[in-house]
Every structure is written in structure tokens, then in C-alpha cells.
């Protein structure tokens, strides 16, 4: 599903974030991307979400070379992804329902269908009944769950989460990870970047570890 072929990324400042990274991820897996701060996890995710382009090498998603995408093709590609950010990037002037429904608004989904999907997504993250609340009225964990609901509402085949538990305490972090572990049952590939080893240690998940931009052998 995802293939990195000899990918390097150097920023204009001269900082090298990734060095000849190659790996492949098969569909319907929960994959952890681990490493300390500055290891290159976020850069790797930005390459998948097309916020950045590789300096060398190629990134393939569904056998499509992402470097070849331009203009609206990038937007259409992003609609196939669900992205969860560390700071959840919610819009504070919109209700929970409006925040979750943004990806459906972008694809001009029919209002009734959108309502059904929003309810289903909120139910999955345990926030049904909070549709009319504003993000400011929610706790940090609930806000992150709204971010996850927004990522899954479009039923993407690939969900990418960049340090989704980074701002949460251990208990809330485990709760969020529980949601991801449940989601993978719905034929979804999930990549979670985290520096918190306890989420995957001792469990049967695929883990890629990055160190100073290099992928360590498994």
C-alpha cells in the first residue's frame, strides 16, 4: 500500500531529515513509527500527506508515485487520507459536528448522508451527544477524539496520526490508542508516529524505528 524507495529529505536550511529510507507497508495494519524528537517521524508523515516532497527517491501510495501529483490531484489524493495531528487542529468557531463534517463538506457529500457519517464517527470515538458542543467546551482527550472522528468520517483507507497522544496524559493516551486499535479492524491502514514506546512494546504490531533520519533494521 505504501512504499518508500530510497527516500531522502533535506530542507532548504541544510538540515537532513531523512536518509535513504526504504520500507513497505501492506494494507490493513497498524504501524508504529517510533524515534526520538528530530528522528524524522514528522518529515516521513509530511511526505505521505504531501506537505513535503522528497529530495531524492520516491514515495508510492497505492502504487502511485506521489511526486507526479500536481494541483487538484494533490487535493483529491488527500481526500483518501485521514490525518490526526498532535494539536488536533480543530476550528474553535465551529461545533464538534461541523469540525467532524469538514472532509464531507470538501467532497460535497449530501447533507443527510453527511449527518449519518458524522454520527457514526462520533459514536466510534465515544462522543455521540456532543455534536453541538464547541471544542473549547471539551477536555484535551475529547478534543483529540474529535480530531480522530474528523480523520475517519470520510472512511479513508489510510489514517496517519502524528504524535496523537503527545499532549495527553498516559491514561488518555491509552484511550486514544485503544481507538486506533479498534479502527484497524475496519480494513484501514493506520500509521502512528509516537516516541512513547509503551503503546507498542510487547504487542504484535509492525514498528519502524527512525534515528537521525535513518531507518533502523527491525
Amino acid at each position: 500500500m505504501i512504499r518508500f524507495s530510497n527516500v531522502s529529505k533535506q530542507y532548504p536550511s541544510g538540515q537532513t531529515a531523512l536518509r535513504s529510507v526504504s520500507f513497505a507497508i501492506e494494507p490493513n495494519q497498524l504501524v508504529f513509527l517510533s524515534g526520538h524528537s528530530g528522528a524524522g517521524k514528522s518529515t516521513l508523515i509530511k511526505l505521505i500527506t504531501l506537505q513535503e516532497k522528497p529530495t531524492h527517491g520516491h514515495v508510492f501510495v497505492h502504487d502511485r508515485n506521489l511526486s507526479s501529483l500536481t494541483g487538484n490531484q494533490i487535493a483529491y489524493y488527500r481526500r483518501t487520507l485521514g490525518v490526526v495531528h498532535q494539536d488536533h487542529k480543530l476550528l474553535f468557531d465551529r461545533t464538534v459536528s461541523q469540525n467532524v463534517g469538514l472532509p464531507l463538506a470538501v467532497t460535497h457529500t449530501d447533507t443527510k448522508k453527511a449527518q449519518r457519517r458524522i454520527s457514526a464517527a462520533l459514536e466510534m470515538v465515544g462522543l455521540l451527544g456532543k455534536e453541538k458542543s464547541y471544542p473549547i467546551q471539551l477536555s484535551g482527550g475529547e478534543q483529540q477524539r474529535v480530531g480522530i472522528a474528523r480523520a475517519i468520517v470520510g472512511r479513508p483507507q489510510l489514517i496517519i496520526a502524528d504524535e496523537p497522544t503527545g499532549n495527553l496524559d498516559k491514561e488518555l493516551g491509552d484511550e486514544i490508542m485503544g481507538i486506533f486499535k479498534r479502527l484497524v479492524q475496519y480494513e484501514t491502514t493506520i500509521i502512528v508516529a509516537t516516541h512513547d514506546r509503551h503503546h507498542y512494546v510487547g504487542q504484535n504490531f509492525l514498528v519502524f524505528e527512525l534515528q537521525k533520519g535513518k531507518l533502523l533494521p527491525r
Partner: protein
Amino acid sequence: MTRFFFLHLRTFVSCLGRMWRARLATLFTVTSVGIVLSLPLGLYTLSVNLKSATEFVKSTPEITLFVSKTASAESIAELGTSIRQLPEVNQVSVITADEALEEFESITGIESVIKYVPDNPLPTVLIVRPPESKSNPDEIQRLATALRELELVDAVEVDFEWLRRFYSIIGLVNIVFTIVSILLVSAAVLLICNTTRLSISSRQDEIMVIDQIGGTGSFIRRPFVYIAVIQSLLGVVIAAVIIEAIRLTVEPYVTQLADLYASPFRVTGLTWQLWLAITLSVCAISWIASRITVKICLYRLAASKN
């Protein structure tokens, strides 16, 4: 096609909702645009009315012939008939010396003094009016020269010099109006562009999120462009209300003044066809300007985030 219109209708309604939620800011912007637009449109209305006023003035240039005091009434009548037959002449009026004296007395109120003057000092006067089609200053000048050559004509006075000056002033005023109007319309467009820029700046996070979840460039641009066009449209409506209010206030005074000069001139507003053309033009200019502004701002925003 239905889907296309539905999408635009949805964006339009959502923009109206957004403007309503920020109604105070919308009111300030729209009123500013309206006032800025009302100035060039007001100047244009004034220019249209001035042009109309000069049309009435244009029909009255006349040549005054002072007939020799020795001329008999019969020879004066013959002179009038011969002038009337000229193709460059439309109308000839005769003011006899006695009529002129009577008018002089009634205007000045010095009949007691006139009584002591042994003879009427005023000559008989012929007022010659050319047809409207031949009333430009050059043709009047040619006619005046020809009339000056006639026997019994002592002097000729042509009243188009002031008209020539008047036309020059009107021309100058029109140029000034045009320049000021261009500057003010540019100010209105810049106001819309700046409002759009501020709106983009205040919604940076939303733009970045929409970009990240797969919103196309046109999806992101559309609301800003719609709001700019709606603001311009409302600005034109406010400008129309201001101009019509001023016209209705001024109209009775101008009518009174025109009546004093026996002029049929009346203040007119702009026609609905012209208002429609102005509205479409302003909306088109705002659409283009806001599209360019949004494109530049989004490009800068994307560059700053990378």
C-alpha cells in the same frame, strides 16, 4: 449542471451566513464601500446633469443687431424679413426702440429721469437665433460677420463668448470628475482587496485544515471571492441610496432655480439600465481583484508554512 449550481448556491448561502454572523464588520465594510462608490457615481450623476443643463443653454445662443437710429419702421421690417429668409437663421425677433425703452424703465425704475431726455436714446434691436443644428461658435461667428455687412446695421453683438468659456469649464470639470472617479473606484476596489486579505489572514488555520483534508484551490478561494462580490453588490446598493437621497433633497431647489431662469431643466438620476451596468461592472472588478488577492495571499500563506 444542477450540481454545479447547487454547489455555488450552497457557498453563496454559507457566505451570507458568515457575513450575518460578523454583521458589524460587514456593515462597516459595506458602508465604507458604499460611501467610496457614491462619490464617483455622484460625480457621474452631476456630470450627466451638467451635460443636460448645457443642452438647454446650447439652444439659446443669439446674435443681437443694433439697427441705425435713422432707419424707418418699413426698412426695419424689410431688414427683418430678409434676415429671416437666410438658411442660417431660425428666428428673428424685433424689439423696437420704444419697447426697449419701456423694458429699460421697468427694469431700472428710473422713468422720472428718462422723462427729461428729449429723444429715445435706444436703437431698435433685432434678435437673430440660428437653428440648433447651426449653433456652434464657428457658424455663429460666420453668420455674425455676414450680418455686420448689412446696410442699416450699426453694431452686432454675439453672446457665444461666455458659452465658449462655459464649454471649456464643463470640459475641464468632466476631466477632473473622470480622474477623481477612477481614483475613487480604485480606492473601493483596494478596500475590498484589503478586507479579503484580512479575512484570509484571520482564517489561516481554517484554510490550512481545509487544504490538508483535500479542499481544492477553488473550494478554498470561492467563499472569499463570493464575500467580496456580495460586499461590492451591497456597496452599490448603499451608493444608490445615498445618490438618490441627495438627488431628491436637491431636486426642488434646482427646479426652483431653473424656473427662475425659465429653463425646462430638471435634475435626473441614473437610469436603471445604467445602474445595472454599474452593478455588473463593480461586481466583475471585485471578482477579478478578489481572485487575484486570494491567489497571492494563499500562495504566501503556503510559502510561510513550508
